[in-house]
């Protein structure tokens, strides 16, 4: 591993200044479960790692039924699923946080890092998309907000400009009769990368018999995680039924444009999009009905 500098930033401004100065030779470091591995394996060469996990804004974790969730980009996964209130409000996000890597990884890995790594297979991105998460980005020109589904632009590529870094997420408070669900397909039970991932959120009417709205997010079926917009829209106003769910799953299948690699084939991934979307929707519906 080539030597590089390490600076723990104390404030957002300090981090922005350091990142802006070094350009693409610098990267923000949070849990490090992707970045350190990449640098050690020589897949990425850096002059500087700016540790952002000492900055108060990246460590915030606050939830209220009125304002929703404010989640710092450096908050490790386990803090999310260990919080009963947050897990109950955003079960789809907790589903993902619980399955990233393995138990040890979850003590370190952050949702912010998972998003910034911009893997098409990232587990927390479909839940962020279906929960309408907004990414708060700090940069030389102040802060800006970007919806989660617009954050990734390609494998390993994001909207972050020179000097910018992800500070936190704002996730709206859950609506009445709503819930969410995330699942992925892996051949193993842990320590694996999704062959396909699917997240869903649903809002049902007061009788819990019709959809008010729904959102479907997909992983590992395109260069970036996808928001399945048409499939999601198809459910609004429809009666909760196998037909409606199956039709949405079928629609989700149509936007998948995966590749074949050592983790899975195109045919398998396209097939799994439908299966997993159906299971994610049914999982979310089941949670609403149970609540």
């Amino acid at each position, binding site marked *: 591993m*080539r*030597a590089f500098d390490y600076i723990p930033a104390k404030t957002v401004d300090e981090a922005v200044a350091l990142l802006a100065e070094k350009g693409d030779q610098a990267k923000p470091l949070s849990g490090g479960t992707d970045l350190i591995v990449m640098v050690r394996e020589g897949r990425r060469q850096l002059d500087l790692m700016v540790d952002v996990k000492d900055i108060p804004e990246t460590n915030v974790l606050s939830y209220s039924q009125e304002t929703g969730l404010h989640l710092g980009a450096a908050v490790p996964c386990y803090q999310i699923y260990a919080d009963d209130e947050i897990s109950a409000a955003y079960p789809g996000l907790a589903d993902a946080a619980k399955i990233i890597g393995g138990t040890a990884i979850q003590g370190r890995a952050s949702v912010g890092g998972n998003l910034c790594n911009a893997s098409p297979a990232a587990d927390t991105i479909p839940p962020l998309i279906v929960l309408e998460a907004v990414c708060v980005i700090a940069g030389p020109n102040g802060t800006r907000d970007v919806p989660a589904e617009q954050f990734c632009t390609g494998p390993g590529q994001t909207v972050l400009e020179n000097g910018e870094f992800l500070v936190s997420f704002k996730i709206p408070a859950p609506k009445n009769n709503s819930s969410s669900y995330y699942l992925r397909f892996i051949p*193993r039970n*842990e*320590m694996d990368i999704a062959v396909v991932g699917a997240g869903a959120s649903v809002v049902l009417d007061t009788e819990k018999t019709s959809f008010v709205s729904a959102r479907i997010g997909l992983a590992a079926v395109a260069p970036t995680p996808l928001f399945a917009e048409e499939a999601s829209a198809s459910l609004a106003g429809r009666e909760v039924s196998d037909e409606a769910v199956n039709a949405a799953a079928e629609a989700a299948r149509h936007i998948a444009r995966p590749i074949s690699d*050592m*983790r899975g*084939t195109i*045919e398998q991934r396209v097939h799994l999009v439908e*299966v997993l979307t159906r299971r994610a929707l049914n999982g979310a519906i089941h949670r609403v009905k149970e609540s």
Partner: protein
Amino acid sequence: MPEYSVVGRRLPRVDALEKVTGAAKYGADVHPPGMLYGKIVRSEYPHAKILHIDTTEAELLPGVRAIITQADVESGRKVFASDKVLYSGEPIAAVAATDSDIADEAAGLIKIEYERLPVVQNVMEAIQPTAPRLHSDETKDGPSRRGIRNRLKQLSLDESEGSSEEIRTLETELETLEEDVYYNISAETHTEIGDVEKGFAESDIVVENTYTIPRVHQTYMEPHVSVASADSSGKVTVWASTQGPFAIRSGIAGTLGIPLGKINVIPTIMGGGFGGRFGVTMTHVPAVLLSQKTGRPVRVQVTRKEEFLDGRPAPGCVIKMKTGATKSGGILACQALAFWDSGAVSGASIGSTIRVRGVYKIPNLKVDAYGVYTNKSGTTAYRAPGAPQAIFAAESQLDEIARRIGMDPVEFRLKNMREEGDMIPGGSQEPVIGYKETLKAVADAAGWWNRDKSHNQGWGVAVGDWTNGCGPGGVYVSIHEDGSARIFHGSMDITGTDTAITQIVAEILTLPYERVTITRGDTDSAPYATGSGGSVVTFTMGNTAKLAAEDTRRRILELAAERLNTEIDNFELRDGKIFVNGADSPKSISLGELAAFSLNTRGGPIVGKGSFAQQSSTPALAAQIAKVEVDAETGRIKVLKLVSSQDVGFAINPMAVEGQIEGGTVQGYAWAIMEEMQYDQNGNVNPGLVDYRVPTSADLPTVESVIVEVPAPNGPFGAKGVGEPPITPTLATMSNAVVDAVGVRVNDLPIKPEKIVAALHNNGN
């Protein structure tokens, strides 16, 4: 069965404390003063000519102490590729530097110019005339062409009339036979018993299929590492993590032309081997060469990625197989044609193809096996080398036959199994064996006879056989003056063999287990010991240790007779004391008193020795039953039950034996459903533990072990080798269970979820 006090008991391992506390010293813990760090420079391409190697820039990097290539190998034996590379990851040069980052950087600065050559990775493509050739243009005849040629040879010796006409017919046939000539063949083996064509003709049912078994890595926990230190006198010391230090010594001697007496191999505790840590491998010779050149100790330690690129995994293979049987369930004929992917060097386990015969009475058998060169690293042993592959094909076929004739698969196997005195096809007579007992034991334990299942659930059964190896070994036993005993030997501990040896010696000397300790020497200090593989250790070293303990006991009784002034026949060694039998006044002397007395008299220290060469071993069966549930939508397999029985002869330590049964079964399960080294035109595409999938603890079914004991006549206390058998049936066990669950048979391993989904789709589901 006789009553024993130490063997046969579930005792904690002698090395338990150092392992669980982390005190155990592995290869990478060796750090002699002044040590340098070695790094191997590897080929980027699977097949290419090397045009030029430029080390200039790397040599200038501060901290670099030596760079070596094939030009530095005085013996001329191939250590590095110099003109051509045959696989991605093949060693081309090595660097020694003052730290590992500098060594890595220097390795990256070595410039190698290549001319790329066409690549072949698939055995069935490699045997075609259009395939790129790795070694030469030599071709080999396939089974039919060989048959015709052999007949022609016979006929040419036959002077009777009519033969000339047959010769002409056959010659024409040979000319028109277009296929059946194979390219890139590294080795071949052929066996024929009876007449398979006749056997198939008489069969009511014949099943025929092609089975593809992937190349898998042994995935031992500890990557290869060695430290070498060459001194000015020419003496070479090598710390090696190995299954056999004596083989490392002879391997280095042979490769570098150093006399045996000038090499000392100090074995470190081994982080798993499974056959992949035998003999001189990736690190030993480069470490010695770099140390000779720099005059300093050098450690060469590979990464997990290098393990996948340049390790010596188990060969994959393609087996075309055909089995014929009668409606009433009698096997009549069995034929296999196998192509083993031996990678760039000869050495795949092609001889194991004969294991398609299993443990059954098969009157007609024909086996043709070829090793095929491809642009991959070479292969080596992996737990029962070659058997899981061959047995997967054979036990899949038997399952299919049993289903088609409507016979219970366990009953079908029991009906055809050999018993004592039956001829092994292509071999000798069966000795005392426990095939049927072992299969019945697993069926009873698993609840096979009244098995139930829900939708998409299924049960599978398979058996696999293996016979432990045997090799030479020597052991000393010494009695201390406090009456405790110490064992000195030179064999590597794998999965509790030191413990088994200790139990055996304690049993013979009637000492408590805690009063016997064991010490492993290096090759300078320990008597020769065969390598720890092939399930040999408890059989070979157990027998050796038993001889040494018996020799010690003889010496103890001799000295006691002298001390107590009685005939040696009147003595008995019991509970670590010597008692005089039948005397008017009972007399006894403790082992400690005797040892102390002996030190101060003419007796001297009490030392016994055991030296052992060969004894014939006895086949052992592993039988397994799995119950699985398949998610028909995703193809995911969940194991609900996995029961594994094994004839171990006699379990010296049942706990350690169960560990072996569980470990082997789990490795077989992983091979069946997830493990696979994948290759494309650039080489291995999954060289790491994220994408080379081995099960984690979250994936493992609870393996229920069932110990069956049919004693081996020559085993210590009847013990058979236990390490290898349990991996042999699992590939077929899993596949057969999937068939029972969802009705599709995946003959191309691993049974990945997408293959089940595709097969179900093709079945119209």
